[in-house]
């Protein structure tokens, strides 16, 4: 137990901050994923074949390629891409991008592919009559989307989005390969310096279980909130 003490003698505070980091990366990644879903869901649903093709390639490639490979692409490729853009503006020094941003972006793109599929499914399963009724009532495009379609989409999407959240949360463990100090990386450091990997990795597993358990409870509440009236 003294291994988990807070302060200089134990790893308690380090692991606590690492857990906060995991939560922060997961939420950022999920948010970036939503932005991607917001862009690609309309493309998936559009009648234009070319836009369809772009959106389908995005979801197919991301969901068919291992997360780790995507992370390596961003980790090794991100710096080069940013430096290339900077060199256009005449800046030729070495730029190191923050591991947090690279990681959140890589996981966000992955999470976005899953979110896109979830939103597409949810919007497609909304009754056509709802769209027509909104039109008949003379609602503006804005009002139609935010007052009629979105609330119903959310109700249908939340159970599946909770799965996406779980996947995203677990995927953040892979960012540890880039050196970002989240739960996995901190456990690796602690295991290395105390020579007690069994304890620290098991503790990391407990932390992840705790995170999934608590987030499930919170999401269940959301589900109840959006299902009222049904």
């Amino acid at each position, binding site marked *: 137990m003294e291994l988990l003490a807070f302060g200089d003698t134990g790893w308690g505070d380090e692991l606590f901050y690492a857990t906060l980091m995991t939560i922060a990366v997961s939420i950022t990644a999920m948010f970036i994923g939503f932005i991607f879903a917001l862009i690609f869901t309309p493309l998936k649903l559009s009648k234009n074949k070319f836009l369809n093709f772009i959106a389908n390639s995005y979801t197919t490639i991301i969901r068919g390629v291992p997360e780790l490979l995507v992370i390596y*692409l961003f980790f090794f490729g991100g710096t080069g891409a940013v430096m290339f853009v900077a060199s256009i503006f005449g800046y030729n020094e070495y730029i190191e991008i923050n591991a947090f941003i690279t990681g959140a972006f890589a996981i966000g793109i992955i999470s976005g592919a899953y979110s896109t599929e979830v939103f597409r499914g949810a919007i497609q399963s909304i009754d056509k009559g709802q769209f027509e009724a909104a039109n008949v009532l003379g609602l503006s495009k804005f009002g139609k989307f935010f007052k009629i379609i979105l609330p119903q989409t959310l109700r249908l999407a939340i159970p599946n989005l909770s799965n996406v959240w779980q996947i995203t949360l677990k995927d953040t463990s*892979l960012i540890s390969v880039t050196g970002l100090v989240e739960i996995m990386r901190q456990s690796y450091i602690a295991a290395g310096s105390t020579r007690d990997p069994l304890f620290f990795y098991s503790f990391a597993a407990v932390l992840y*279980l705790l995170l999934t358990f608590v987030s499930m409870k919170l999401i269940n509440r959301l589900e109840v909130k959006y299902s009222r009236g049904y």
Partner: protein
Amino acid sequence: MDLELMINSFPKLLSAALITLKLLSVSLIIGLFIGLFFAILRLQKNILINKFAYGYSYVFRGTPLLVQIFIIYFGLGQIEYLRSTILWTILKEPYWCAIIAFALNTGAYTSEILRSAFQTIKPGIVEAGKSLGISNKVIFYKIQIPIAIRQSLPAYGNEIILMMKGTSLASTVTLMDLTGVAKYIISTTFKPIEVFIVAGGIYLFMTFIIHNLIKFLEKKYSY
């Protein structure tokens, strides 16, 4: 774009893909048995057995695969007792550690898939078997299992693809699978995009094959 690098790295990546396939197939076969075993435990009425099987699938589905591999590869070697047993000959190999982790992980997901498949079998089918005087054992093996397998094919196809992506984590415990070799080439040439296109293409091709294989099986066993 460095086309030459892409062409040169293709054979290396392709032979690494064989290791990925080997890891995948061995862990899927072991995982299927584990999954079936725990799915049957989940259907038992004994609460203790039921809770045990639920706990297994909850823990393995609620934690990242990376943690599971690290516990098995780095953690288990720490137990002195294990080092003296015959198990150590298996556990000291990263290859088998990865397979154990993958098999336990996919076993947890498979048990959930099979459990829900068993539960969707209409009771009338089992009753029909009983009224024909077929023994419970034969009903289970000849009626329930084939139906459950057909029911779970689509979900299991997804699980195979997820597991194929999961095998990329073998590269974190020094195995040179497709992702491991890709990472090695990236870190020596600093050409991430080219390598990503080739390695990602191979992964996508494998996904495509698995997807169509499952579709074919679904069609073949549909009723």
